[in-house]
């Protein structure tokens, strides 16, 4: 064994086979040294989550050893890992939604959130949050927070438990540039304190910018371990996907057609009556992608909900092909020619327990094309439809009968997108369409959006991913505190300018 003091975490020949026979990890040798930010890079399905769950005591390896601070350990449950100073922030949040952020953070500790010491604890958490630059309103119920803020609660929860090895499973997939920057600032602080961060991502830029060393996983095997100085985007990408990746999608020039979708002076309120979207107007034309950038939690979620007909409009109007959609249900809005891709595919786009047949007709269950005798659903027709979609959109799954839960994130999103595009809509809203997806799936989804544009559809893209906005959009606006600011043609918008607008600075 190499010098045990330096290596905080080390695995040797780690293998994990899931009960269903999936070989998620094969002979993984992985190590992290004290005081480093270590990037764990890999496509979806590479085994990153599996590895981190093993390190945090949630899963047991099939074989192989784990050494923490030089000692061979056998962890049986997450509390064992916490005892050893290892904490994990999950890719999909594990928060109690009706509880406040504060209650979530102290949940599972022996602190009574309404007791004597609660005030002190709250103050110390607020300090901690401020110190590491993770701002959250501690008293709001978690379900009222945007995904980005929920993520911050998760991170604070671990920091509150004083872990010295922090595992973050794709933490930036719900953060934005600004938030990511802040997160990294706090991670750097933790690093200075001698803590170690295992940072999981599939975003090359992030590992290049922030990680001291990088381990790349592909199909459950380590395909490389290099230090920051040796890393380049091309080498990393090749290690990750095993082939050279196309980095630029081609957005061919197009002349936009007539106006399809219009929002005029839209104002939306939250539950307390606070304005979350203020006097927002925009137009989307055929053959055009309108990109809305912005830090999450600035009203994008509410805007998308109002467009989908599941949030009341306080003032203003939303019109699709000239018809007011306010007060109409999302199925009516869809039938009128909208494709709605929700920001949270697992929660809003899919019913994970249902199989693909059942998921592809969600919202179309009363369509004539699936009508059997009397008013029954003709599952034979649905099956044909599912198979066609799977073929056309390259959805990888065991079959149309697989539950949606069993699909990878990329394939889940393909199911949602294919369902929405299959009705040949004139207008598509895509909210955070590639969040958490791997390189290949991201490329594929973006290409679909560009193809839709090419097919003369109007696309409204809401994304916290600046690269995505810049790559796809013809028109760009930034949402800041409920307002749409700095709207302009993509050519006139630089990365820097958008970055400033996202921080509320109108240059």
């Amino acid at each position, binding site marked *: 064994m190499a010098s045990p003091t330096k290596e905080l975490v080390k695995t040797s020949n780690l293998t994990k086979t899931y009960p269903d026979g999936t070989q998620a990890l094969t002979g993984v040798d992985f190590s992290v040294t004290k005081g480093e930010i270590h990037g764990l890079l890999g496509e979806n399905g590479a085994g990153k989550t599996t590895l981190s769950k093993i390190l945090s005591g949630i899963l047991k390896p099939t074989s192989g050893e784990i050494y923490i601070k030089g000692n061979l350990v056998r962890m049986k449950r997450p509390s064992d890992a916490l005892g050893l100073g290892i904490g994990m922030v999950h890719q999909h949040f594990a928060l109690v939604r009706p509880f406040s952020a504060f209650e979530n953070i102290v949940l599972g500790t022996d602190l009574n959130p309404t007791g004597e010491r609660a005030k002190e604890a709250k103050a110390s958490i607020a300090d901690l949050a401020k110190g590491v630059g993770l701002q959250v309103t501690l008293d709001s119920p978690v379900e009222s927070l945007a995904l980005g803020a929920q993520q911050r609660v998760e991170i604070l929860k671990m920091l509150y438990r004083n872990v010295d090895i922090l595992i973050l499973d794709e933490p930036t997939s719900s953060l934005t540039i600004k938030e990511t920057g802040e997160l990294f600032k706090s991670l750097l602080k933790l690093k200075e304190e001698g803590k170690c961060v295992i940072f999981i991502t599939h975003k090359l830029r992030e590992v290049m910018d922030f990680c001291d060393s990088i381990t790349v996983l592909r199909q459950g095997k380590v395909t490389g371990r290099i230090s920051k100085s040796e890393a380049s985007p091309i080498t990393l990408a090749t290690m990750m996907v095993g082939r050279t990746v196309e980095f630029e999608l081609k957005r061919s020039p197009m002349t936009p057609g007539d106006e399809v979708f219009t929002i005029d002076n839209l104002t939306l309120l939250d539950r307390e009556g606070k304005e979350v979207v203020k006097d927002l107007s925009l137009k989307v034309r055929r053959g055009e992608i309108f990109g809305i950038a912005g830090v999450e939690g600035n009203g994008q979620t509410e805007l998308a909900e109002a467009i989908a007909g599941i949030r009341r409009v306080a003032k203003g109007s939303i019109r699709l092909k000239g018809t007011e959609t306010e007060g109409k249900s*999302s*199925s009516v809005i869809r039938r009128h020619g909208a494709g*709605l891709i929700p920001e949270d595919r697992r929660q809003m786009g*899919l019913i994970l327990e*249902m199989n693909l047949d059942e998921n592809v007709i969600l919202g179309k*269950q009363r369509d004539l094309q699936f009508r059997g005798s009397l*008013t029954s659903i003709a599952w034979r027709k649905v099956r044909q439809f599912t198979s066609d979609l799977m073929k056309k959109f390259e959805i990888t799954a065991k079959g149309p009968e697989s539950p949606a839960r069993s699909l990878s994130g990329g394939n889940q999103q393909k199911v949602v997108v294919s369902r929405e595009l299959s009705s040949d809509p004139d207008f598509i809203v895509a909210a955070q369409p590639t969040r958490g997806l791997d390189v290949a799936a991201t490329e594929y989804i973006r290409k679909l959006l560009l193809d839709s544009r090419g097919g003369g559809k109007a696309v409204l893209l809401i994304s916290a991913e600046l690269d995505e906005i810049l790559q796809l959009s013809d028109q760009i606006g930034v949402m800041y505190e409920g307002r749409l600011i700095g709207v302009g043609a993509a050519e006139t918008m630089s990365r820097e300018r958008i970055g400033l607008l996202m921080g509320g600075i109108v240059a």
Partner: protein
Amino acid sequence: MKLPLIGGGRVLAPLEESAFAALMGFFFGGILLVVLGYNPILTYYYMFYGGLGSLSNVTDMLGNAAPLILTALTFAVGVRAGLFNIGAEGQVYVGAGGAIYASYYFLPAGIHLGFALVLAGAAGALMAVPTYLLKAYRGVNEVITTIMLNWTAYFGVLWVAIVLLADPARPEKTISVAPTSRFPDFLLGSVSTSALLFAIAVAAAFYVYLWLTPSGYELRSVGLNPEAARFSGINPRKPLLSALLLGGASAGLAGAVQVAGRTTPFALYTGLSNVLNYGYNGIGVALIGRNHPLGIIVAGLFFGTLQAGFSTVQLYARVPFEIIQVIEGIIIFTVAAPELYRRFRGSLKK
């Protein structure tokens, strides 16, 4: 496409699981019997003898299974819609009342039974309306309203039985259900067999509704993921209403079976003893049957058999009533445990 069977596609696994769980239950129950000084083999022998030992025992057991299947459907359709509906108990009472009330009319056989069933089903469904209104418009949890309604139904039906439906000659009971509105006894010479066939038909209808109709699909969607259902344009109140009304109707029909489809007594007595607990036992049956109509048919027969063994075990194996109940509880709990676990784990994840 293959019809989605229990647990979505695979029928064998849940059956094996339940059979294994049942064996475990009998085993643990047996240990308890030994510890308490009773002969487990003899006890189980009479338990099954009571249910299956003779033709009349069998028909009696089938008659017991019929209302259990119907009340289990009430609970199951609720679970499928994301509800914990325990209102079947009270709906059975009003259903029984409705079926008896039908006997004040003179109608030809067959039509008369149909009329009684319609009244019973409607009474049960009506009983579910307050639960719907309070949940849909005031957000009141259905557990609370259904428990309160069960008591309301109990005293309401008691009053109706004593005051409105009382038999002038025998004031301790209601009038007897007219022979024309009883279930026919064309099979094995018992009304219970046709009552069971009826319950099976209702279960099949629930199956068709849940898996082959858009409305049933919407109900299941809301039950599994209300947010995604809403985003897809489903108005969550509609499935809520369907689940409560269909469940209420089914429990009402269970009440009709109890007074028109059992060998005796074709009436309600003060205290309503012959309709008590079918709603609550239906929850166990639904859990054993994995909240699936086809599973519920099997589970109803199993539960019916256990229950029918009660009196014979007391009589012949001389095991006291309370201990038999404990043994039965153990068996039912072990069989329901896997499903309970899955439900509970599911709710933890959310």
